[in-house]
């Protein structure tokens, strides 16, 4: 299968993620959208790595980078979920629009 298809899939997933972040109020959904964007970029990285290897070599740069992204994402999820949970506990709401105190 042509690698372009993987890239198109990656672009679709990334756009869905962006769209989700921009329009959904629920913090958990926005968070999931961010994860979706990360995974879309992981897919693109692996695809590029595969394309780069071509016929001759054996390149795993993209795959390794994807692992790094996953590790950082996992760490970030821990922090992010903790913040969301503590906000929910104090305000009984997970809407990102309610948490808008940090402004002019």
């Amino acid at each position, binding site marked *: 299968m042509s690698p372009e298809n993987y890239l198109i899939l990656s672009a679709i997933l990334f756009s869905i993620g*962006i769209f989700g*972040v*921009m*329009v959904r*109020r629920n913090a958990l959904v*926005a968070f999931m959208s961010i994860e979706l964007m990360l995974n879309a970029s992981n897919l693109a990285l692996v695809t590029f790595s595969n394309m780069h290897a071509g016929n001759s070599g054996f390149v795993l740069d993209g795959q390794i980078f994807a692992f790094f992204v996953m590790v950082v994402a996992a760490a970030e999820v821990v922090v992010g979920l903790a913040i969301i949970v503590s906000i929910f506990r104090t305000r009984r709401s997970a809407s*990102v*629009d309610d*948490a*808008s*105190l*940090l*402004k*002019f």
Partner: protein
Amino acid sequence: MDLSHTIMFSYAWLLIAIPLAGATILLLLGSAAKKWGHWLGTAVALASFVYGACLFAEMFLAPAEQRATDVPVYTLIDVGTWHVTFGLLIDQLSVLFILLITGVGSLIHIYSIGYMAHDERRSRFFGYLNLFIAAMLLLVTADSYLLMFFGWEGVGLASYLLISFWQERPAAAAAGKKAFVMNRIGDLGVILAMSLLFTTVGSVQYSEVFAAANRIPVATATLIGFFLLLGACGKSAQVPLQAWLLDAMEGPTPVSALIHAATMVTAGVYVITRSGAIFDHAPAAATGVVIVGTVTMLAGAWIGTSKDDIKKALAGSTMSQIGYMMMAAGIGGPAYAYAIFHLLTHGFFKANMFLGAGSVMHGMDDDVNMRRMGGLAKFMRITTVTFAMGYLAIIGFPLFSGFFSKDHIIVAAFGYNPVIGICAMIGALITAYYMTRMMLLTFYGKRRWVEPQEANPNRLPVRHPHESPLTMTIPLIVLALFSIGAGLLMNHWIGQWLHPVTDPAHPHEVTFGEGLIEAFTNPLAWITLVLVAIGIGLGWLVFGRNRDIPLEAPRPNLAEQIGRNDLYGDAINNAAVVHPFLAGTEGVAKADEGIIDGVAVGSAGVIGGLSTQLKRAQTGYVRSYAVTMTAGVIVVGLVLILGQLA
């Protein structure tokens, strides 16, 4: 070969360090030194005098070519080819100054013990006096213009502190400030002269400057000469920077005697004499010195004729006498020695008369107005007699000290230019007139005051005049003796003594020896004597003959009117300098507020207004930030893609 290997000379810095240490101790301890401060102050002045006298004795006994001694003290800067060393130049000229400063200074310290006895801050006064002695010694012994300038500023500081010593009086505070500011103008001249010397000669060391003086272009040398003259005008109260000296009389009388008569105000004459090599090379600048001296000599005498304040009349006289010295210093050649000769004799007789005036004030409840005095001769015998010795010396009575020194200057002035010579003679006439006036108003004639127990039908001021204590009369007696004898003592000697300094190019030709004879054989001297007699006669006609002197000055004639207003020196300064400068500063202040501050405040306002609008973008909604960010990424991506395509 010089004397720098001898013990006395190698420790010559002690001369300055001793009074400086005295000043430091007295000023640091403050009121803790109240009980003994005046004794310490006097002791260090005397110690300095003894040290100076030993230096003089050693120099006197040494052969002439070994006398000038440069004592290195320490190296300030030693980088590559740039060496700045501090040293003391003790030669025939500076040693005379050392004796004058420490000798008259010690006498005035002793006098001040009595004069300032009732002052709360007497030990501080002595601290300032010691500071002055140290700075003045540094001024005259420095071996470079730079080090001399340290002393120059030091005496300016001491003068300021002492003029405004009674700082609670607004007039004294203002007078100190005035003296300080006017001296700054002169200091600017000295700084400019030093800068010019540094660029043309590459050094401000006396020895190097004078050795190279002939190689300085004449135009530059003239400029240097005029800058030095500006400095001398400021320090020595010469026209056009004369106005501060009369106000300086607000200070305690010993200060007027020491600083504003005997020593500090003569520093300008010292600098010009010391820089003789430069002035010899710049005749235009030397002519300038003569003209300034002549004008000041007449202006000071004019002021002296019309002041009723005894100290201000003496201050006018001081200006006038320094004018004589400047005249001689400008004429140059052998006249340098005459300038220094007159400087020394003037130091004695003018300090004597100022201290005598202080003694009169002491007995007359600090009144300075001569119209409320009169007939004091019976009540203050010692003061009267000593003052009379000063009087005879300053008018040039034969064989008194001023007779010799002033005669030399008048003869030299005639040799230089008949107009200047005639001015010098007229000055002698006016001097005799105003000094006779002062004598008659103060010590003779009818009493214009009453003693407390006497009937007082005319409402005269009540006074209880009495002779001053011994601490005040002994210095008067010593100074009176010098006023009588100093001229006779030095007349034959000083020209030869100073010759190696004033005319280093011809160390063996002495053109100064006929002094005593000249004073009696030269017709000019006889004419001067006649003029002096006329001056005395005029003074006696106007103020003598037991005439009634009104307590309030009568309506003055035009000449008196001008003299009483210091020849409108303050008005001229105000119109020419102060008001234009004040208007200028006001304009600059307005420009600062309007333009500079306007730009700053305006730009701050613009930024502030913009940020008030921009901060509305910070809504606090995460989703709107996400939109902004996405839009930004899209824009950046588009730019990159378009950049690739183009």
